[in-house]
């Protein structure tokens, strides 16, 4: 969902523009650390990959289809800095050439769809990896952490958008409704994103584990034999695939981590936008006339910080409800997919099948 021109007011557009520029500047430096002097060609190809993946539609039901946003995917595969850089370039080109997303909203789009998704995915992923037991090789913890990261990153992006809308929306819709609609829809989108992202990372992990940057701490170099022609022979994971009962514990631990991180993010955005909270709390619209001429005088001046504590509490509750829904839905889908023989388990069976042939 690319924000067009005129959707958010000027101060918010400028502010997010500054945030985006800062994030890109930091990422330019960080990406050189992630990719050294290969940054330009590799990041360019990854950007082209994201661009292509956003064209890869997956059917949802009854004729509707969605597509990957790719923020979490890029973060897990190539690291947060390169991910932000690639998403920023994709958004810039979409805005300039495809008229997808307004030019004045470019900063907003980069912030909401690039910086927030990458940051949230990074925190969730590494937070979870720290909690999850490391026994059993990379596959299970990486899958769980990737799933959670992708699942949370999409609603987080929606929450960030809602937050921006609360400060700088140009249409007067009660924030509660925007929040409910955005988060509700995006939890669903997030589930799709999470399933596909997890399976994609799993597929890469099965063939070239060295390319999954976020899982580097798991992939021991001795496991990969690089052929003379650049071809890579994967050797089987040291541990047999986890028994069906075992993922349950990481799953719940993971769920807990997701809830904590998401709650933290909700309250972060909540406390950043006291006036938004106020509106959620009271479900009261502010007359359009009151801020018709935002540009003339300080736009934020009108929004006093009233009843913040109260408001923060109620938004916190809304956030918690969102976490609960996300977690329940996500767990259900995750379990369903993991248990289905043809589902994400394919990668596991695929490798164990290969094990016999690779025996020295």
């Amino acid at each position, binding site marked *: 969902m690319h924000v067009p021109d005129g959707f958010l007011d000027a101060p918010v557009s400028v502010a997010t523009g500054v945030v985006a520029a800062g994030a890109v500047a930091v990422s330019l430096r960080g990406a050189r650390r992630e990719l050294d002097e290969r940054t330009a060609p590799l990041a360019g190809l990854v950007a082209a990959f994201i661009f292509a993946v956003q064209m890869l539609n997956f059917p949802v039901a009854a004729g509707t289809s969605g597509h990957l946003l790719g923020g979490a995917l890029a973060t897990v595969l190539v690291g947060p800095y390169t991910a932000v850089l690639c998403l920023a370039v994709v958004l810039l080109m979409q805005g300039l050439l495809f008229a997808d997303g307004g030019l004045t909203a470019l900063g907003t789009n980069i912030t909401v769809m690039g910086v927030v998704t990458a940051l949230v995915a990074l925190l969730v992923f590494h937070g979870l990896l720290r909690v999850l037991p490391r026994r059993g090789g990379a596959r299970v913890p990486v899958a769980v952490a990737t799933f959670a990261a992708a699942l949370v990153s999409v609603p987080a992006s929606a929450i960030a958008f809602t937050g921006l809308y609360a400060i700088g929306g140009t249409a007067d819709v009660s924030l509660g409704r925007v929040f409910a609609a955005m988060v509700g829809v995006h939890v669903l989108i997030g589930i799709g994103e999470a399933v596909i992202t997890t399976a994609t990372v799993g597929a890469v992990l099965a063939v070239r584990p060295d390319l999954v940057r976020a899982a580097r701490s798991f992939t021991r170099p001795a496991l990969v034999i690089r052929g*003379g022609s650049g071809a890579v022979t994967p050797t089987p994971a040291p541990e047999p695939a986890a028994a069906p009962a075992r993922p349950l514990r990481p799953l719940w631990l993971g769920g807990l981590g997701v809830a904590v991180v998401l709650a933290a993010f909700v309250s972060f955005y909540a406390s950043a936008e006291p006036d938004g909270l106020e509106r959620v709390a009271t479900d009261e619209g502010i007359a359009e006339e009151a801020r018709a001429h935002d540009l003339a005088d300080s736009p934020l001046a009108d929004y006093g910080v009233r009843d913040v504590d109260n408001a923060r509490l109620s938004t916190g509750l809304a956030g918690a409800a969102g976490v609960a829904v996300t977690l329940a839905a996500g767990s259900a889908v995750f379990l369903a997919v993991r248990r289905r023989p043809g589902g994400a388990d394919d990668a596991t069976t695929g490798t164990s099948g290969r094990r016999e042939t690779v025996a020295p």
Partner: protein
Amino acid sequence: MDPVTRPDPAPGQAPSLDVSGLAYAYPDGHQALFGVDLTVGRGERVALLGPNGAGKTTLVLHLNGILTPGAGTVRVAGTPVVKDTLPEVRRRVGIVFQDPDDQLFMPTVREDVAFGPANAGLRGPELERCVSRALDRVGMAGYADRPPHHLSFGQRRRVAVATVLAMDPEILVLDEPSANLDPAARRELAEILLSLDLTVLMVTHDLPYALELCPRAVVLSEGVIAADGPTPDLLADEALLRAHRLELPFGFDPRTTRR
């Protein structure tokens, strides 16, 4: 015309390429080269034959210093390939990679051909002349302002050759030049390669192409040079070919095509 003339290097002139005792193991321990010795004289055209996984690509990547030898040395026109000489070596060794899409990474043909010479410091009209000369030599002068992905595969491969020619190399290294070309494009490329007055090292599986273009051939197998001799003789040695997983196309007899 007799392609089987093997110009002897002029006395006192270093060979274009001199590889001796080259061994290399990848960081993970997999060893790809086990002591390669290969000398290519100035103006020679040599085919490098070998099965998949023989270490051909590894050897090629040593020629311009992308990989650093674990043991042994590589010399290009007398200059040893070491860190200090890399810019000079990379100008002298022109590698044409297998997939022209990997090689043509700039938005237009002209910029792509200019990339190498511009890195070497050429600018302005001098650069312009260099680019148009290189494109002329492969018959692509009319396509300078086209984006590479608007060209046919054969045209892209010719432009890839031009990008390397623009750097005025001492030796041209081609990785599978005939792969994915239709017969006409294959013939056109052969004509271009024959018209160049350059040392050529051609890595290929395409034995008839090797016979057509290269008077001399070497077989790289399991990380060492297993055979070295006139191409027609090597291709006539069925036992040798079989031992190294090389096969002539059905019905092709190198003895009858000998000119």
